[in-house]
């Protein structure tokens, strides 16, 4: 614990301030080829023709890869967590989002690679696109995914397989006892992680048959596994040089450039580099997901939340990626920092013809945290109460349980809200200023809530 509170010298700091840190793009590799990507210009289309021969005739072009060159084209990134494989490394018979990669060209220069991409003969038959999660459940909605318009593989013995579902307490009783119902619809939108270093990867085929891969991945062993899986080679064929990341924020969990340059290096026998443009970063790499969240809270006139009904539609874009994991995390956090005794929640991972979404800084949780704090203020506003006091009244206490029945032994909601009030210069009334996180008692606990707000004996355990 010597580092806590101390100013510790940054191990790579001198390299950073002298410009000598070697990022992936900075490796000087003799004879290196540049790779460029042919991408879908349509949100949704069948690929009716794909002819790479004209690209191979472009001066300087050394190789082109399509799905036919990938030993295992469809590989699940979260199969270990029960999310089956659904996404091809390179598109096969159809494209499901504008920007989906179809073929990759390696050439002596960036210009030649771009000329090669432009020369590929490709044609499409456009299909209707689903771009709004709210339309996904309509009978005549365009079909965005071969599994249907929402993820059907949550599984588990007690939950239906096609969404995350929580039923806690008696939601109907809560709504019957309510003095008011406070509703809200919240739509936090997509956010690009936008590290200043774009996705970039270089692969050097070694004379001993191994591949040296310079990668800016955020998860070295995760990405190694994905490369080995797509290539069908054991891990000991791969040597990763990684760990120097020019910002990631979740976006560099995406492991697409690595298998692609590895395949091109194997095909050409030469080092290959692929560096995304900023335009590709924005349009073609995973973002934080857009969410559609509907809430109805049953509240008393003095500010107790008796019950919450909530529907979440998580826009996964065209493929599953990490979205099922994001919605699972989301479902644990639907009450935020508050104890809500009765809960009715349904959360769907919806497929659309948008860029697939994925990790970004607490994804799944940030969307619901923002939503719930906005909803708390709305409750206070509707009831004409102080927003800090509504929060403190409902704040989780020792022994309360989360929506997924985890007992809280060390909740910090009360002191954090009090500190926020103090920092904002808000004067709380004595009851709330002196409130502790100990289990509720006295005037702050309506009789009918006893037994619903966690185990009051938990303090002693």
């Amino acid at each position, binding site marked *: 614990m010597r580092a806590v509170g101390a*100013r510790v*010298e*940054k191990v*790579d*700091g*001198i*390299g*950073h*301030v*002298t*410009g*000598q*840190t*070697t*990022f992936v*793009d*900075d490796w*000087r590799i003799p004879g290196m080829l540049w790779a460029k990507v042919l991408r879908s210009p349509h949100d949704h289309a069948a690929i009716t023709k794909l002819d790479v021969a004209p690209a191979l005739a472009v001066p300087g072009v050394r190789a082109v890869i399509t799905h036919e060159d990938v030993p295992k084209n469809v590989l699940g990134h979260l199969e270990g967590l029960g999310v089956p494989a659904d996404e091809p490394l390179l598109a096969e018979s159809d494209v499901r989002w504008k920007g989906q990669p179809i073929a990759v060209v390696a050439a002596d220069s960036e210009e030649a690679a771009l000329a090669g991409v432009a020369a590929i003969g490709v044609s499409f038959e456009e299909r209707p696109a689903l771009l709004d999660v709210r339309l996904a459940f309509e009978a005549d909605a365009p079909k965005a995914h071969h599994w249907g318009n929402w993820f059907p593989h949550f599984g588990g013995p007690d939950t239906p397989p096609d969404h995350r579902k929580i039923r806690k307490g008696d939601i109907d009783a809560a709504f019957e006892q309510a003095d008011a119902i406070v509703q809200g619809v919240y739509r936090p939108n997509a956010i690009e*992680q*936008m*590290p*200043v*270093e*774009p996705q970039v990867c270089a692969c050097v085929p070694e004379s001993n048959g191994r591949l040296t891969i310079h990668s800016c991945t955020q998860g070295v062993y995760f990405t190694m596994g994905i490369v080995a899986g797509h290539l069908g080679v054991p891990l000991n064929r791969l040597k990763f040089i990684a760990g120097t*990341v*020019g*910002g990631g*924020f979740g976006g560099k969990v995406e492991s697409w450039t690595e298998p692609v340059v590895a395949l091109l290096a194997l095909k050409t026998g030469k080092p290959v580099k692929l*560096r995304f*443009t*900023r335009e590709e970063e924005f349009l073609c790499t995973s973002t934080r997901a857009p969410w559609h969240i509907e809430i109805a809270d049953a509240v008393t006139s003095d500010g107790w939340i008796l019950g919450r009904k909530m529907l979440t539609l998580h826009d996964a874009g065209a493929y599953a990626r990490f979205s099922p994991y994001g919605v699972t995390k989301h479902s644990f956090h639907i009450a935020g920092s508050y104890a809500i005794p009765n809960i009715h929640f349904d959360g769907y991972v919806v497929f659309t013809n948008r860029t697939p979404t994925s990790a970004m800084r607490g994804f799944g949780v940030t969307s619901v945290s923002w939503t719930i704090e906005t909803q708390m203020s709305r409750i206070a506003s509707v009831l004409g109460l102080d927003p800090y006091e509504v929060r403190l009244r409902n704040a989780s206490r020792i022994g309360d349980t989360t929506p997924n029945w985890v007992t809280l032994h060390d909740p910090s909601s009360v002191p954090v809200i009090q500190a926020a009030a103090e920092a904002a210069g808000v004067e709380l009334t004595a009851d709330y200023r002196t409130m502790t996180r100990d289990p509720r008692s006295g005037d702050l606990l309506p009789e009918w809530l006893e037994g619903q707000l966690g185990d009051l004996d938990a303090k002693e355990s």
Partner: protein
Amino acid sequence: MKLNVNGVEHALESGALTPLLHVLREELGVTSPKAGCQSGGCGACTVLVDGEPRRSCLTPLGAVDGAEVTTIEGIGDAHDLHPVQEAFHTLHAAQCGFCTPGMIVATVALLKRLPQPGRREIERALSGHICRCTGYVKIVEAVEAAAGGSR
């Protein structure tokens, strides 16, 4: 065409329309200016051209023929840190480090022009430099410290 880069004269093969960033990185192997956006939006490619900060990705070689170019390699090295580099290091103004060379050369130019800048001048001088890690607070503090140290 010719460039003086960090005190060394170079005769160049690149064409007049080649971005200075590419000349530096690909022809001369000077990799501290970064290809962050290659469209003038992020500031990671910033170098000094005759002492003035310029986005090398948007600067064609032909426009700077014969100029003196300074990258961070010409500012100071690990054995002889410039006060700005020292401040960025000790005050943790560099996190991932990708935007740092551009930030530092722009700061060196600022302090040469305005040795005691106020917070507004610092923010204005660095406003074209995107950092996604630090939230800028530590960067501004480092610039203030470097200015204070050079008093």
